């Protein structure tokens, strides 16, 4: 059975001539979530962008075991960042259909392919099916965010890179999103999420980033901390 494992070793990253990440090490495998924590400006988003290949790393290696060998880590990943990647002039459905057509679906390792949803199913799951024919420009911030989540549902990708996934979402949508992330993890997916709010997810590991000083290094905190949240192991989806 082909398990995925994302391994980062000694990753360093410079932005604007300043080192924001130094010696970041972690491992995260199939059916696991890694929560990247730390104060604002510590490099949580930068770490996700480095994994997504959007920012060049200054040092270190990022490898994916068990994936398609000729594909990069980025091509196995969904990146869910601060920007929603929506065109206000196009309708909700057009926006979503475009990304579905554009992305090449990357199957999970080991044939554990989760069925991807159709566009309308995904919109329905997220509670915005009634907006399908509206131009995306008319959506509220939370609805835009939910439409952006729908992109992750219509194209299967094993790795989800989530940057503050619950921002702008109300309590109910947050529950739905956490349920979807939990489903993804249970289906053998792999989640790396940057957040400063506690996320209630199963099989969670934590990575605490601290500000880079001249000699300090980021501590590896990949130990299992499942007992940190007692109820984490329950299914939520």
């Amino acid at each position, binding site marked *: 059975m082909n398990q995925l494992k994302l391994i980062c070793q000694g990753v360093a990253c410079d932005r604007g001539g300043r080192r924001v990440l130094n010696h970041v090490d972690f491992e995260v495998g199939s059916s696991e979530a890694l929560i990247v924590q730390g104060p604002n400006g510590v490099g949580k988003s930068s770490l996700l962008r480095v994994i997504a*290949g*959007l920012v060049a790393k200054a040092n270190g290696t990022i490898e994916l075991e068990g994936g398609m060998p000729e594909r990069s880590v980025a091509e196995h*990943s969904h990146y869910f960042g601060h920007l929603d990647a929506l065109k206000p002039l*196009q309708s909700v459905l057009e926006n979503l259909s475009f*990304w579905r057509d*554009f992305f*090449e679906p990357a199957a999970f390792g080991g044939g554990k392919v989760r069925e991807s949803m159709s566009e309308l199913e995904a919109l329905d799951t997220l509670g915005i099916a009634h907006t399908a024919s509206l131009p995306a420009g008319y959506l509220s911030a939370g609805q835009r965010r939910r439409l952006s989540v729908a992109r992750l549902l219509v194209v299967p990708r094993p790795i989800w890179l989530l940057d503050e996934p619950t921002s702008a979402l109300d309590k109910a949508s947050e529950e739905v999103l956490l349920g979807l992330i939990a489903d993804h993890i249970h289906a053998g997916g792999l989640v790396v999420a940057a957040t400063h709010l506690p996320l209630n997810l199963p099989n969670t590991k934590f990575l605490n980033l601290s500000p880079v000083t001249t000699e300090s290094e980021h501590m590896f905190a990949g130990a299992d901390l499942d007992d940190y949240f007692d109820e984490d192991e329950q299914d939520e989806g």
Partner: protein
Amino acid sequence: MSWMKSLFVREYQLANRVGGGALIGVLFFLAVVTIFPFGVGPDMILLSRIGAAILWIGALLSTLLGLDRLFQADREDGSLELLVMSGRSLELVVLIKCAAHWAATGLPLVLATPVLSLFVGLDFQSIVLVTLTLLVGAPALTLVGAVGAGVTVSMRRGGVLLSILVIPLAIPILIFGVSAATAGAIDSNNFLVPFLFLCALTLFGLVIGPLAAAAALRVSGD
């Protein structure tokens, strides 16, 4: 293949919807060409002699006008990040975006050229030749401009810098385009050589443009 079609359709639709800017280029072209007779005066002989150049410069400026949003809009809403990391060939993405951009903004310029040619007193043969050279040469302007758009994508007011960067690169296209149109109108034997150079420049742009623009976009995520 279907992703290419989806991308083309989306880009074309976005350019044509309200605020997309497809018509702005034609209106700007109209404005540029119209002010020349006012500036030069009612000298039909002079106007018809420089008419091809006026139309070419008008087309160049109109093309530059719309190019700054080619990648910038995608960068601002986060689409560019997804396009870059999707695993699809970024060169092809750039090429398709250029093709859609040209179909939405460049092609209307070519279609407007015969009408605007009348403003500068061109005869029938010259009208045909100017339109033909623009049809062949205007894609090169878009492709060369795409490189400038890729380089200036992260700048807030990149449009001006884009023009400054691209205009020198567009000079060869302008030279061969105008010389094919004007020389051909005097003696049709002189048409072929500059016209073939123009074709070569477009083919050259077809290769260099996407490669260079994609390279610029890859480092724009920083």
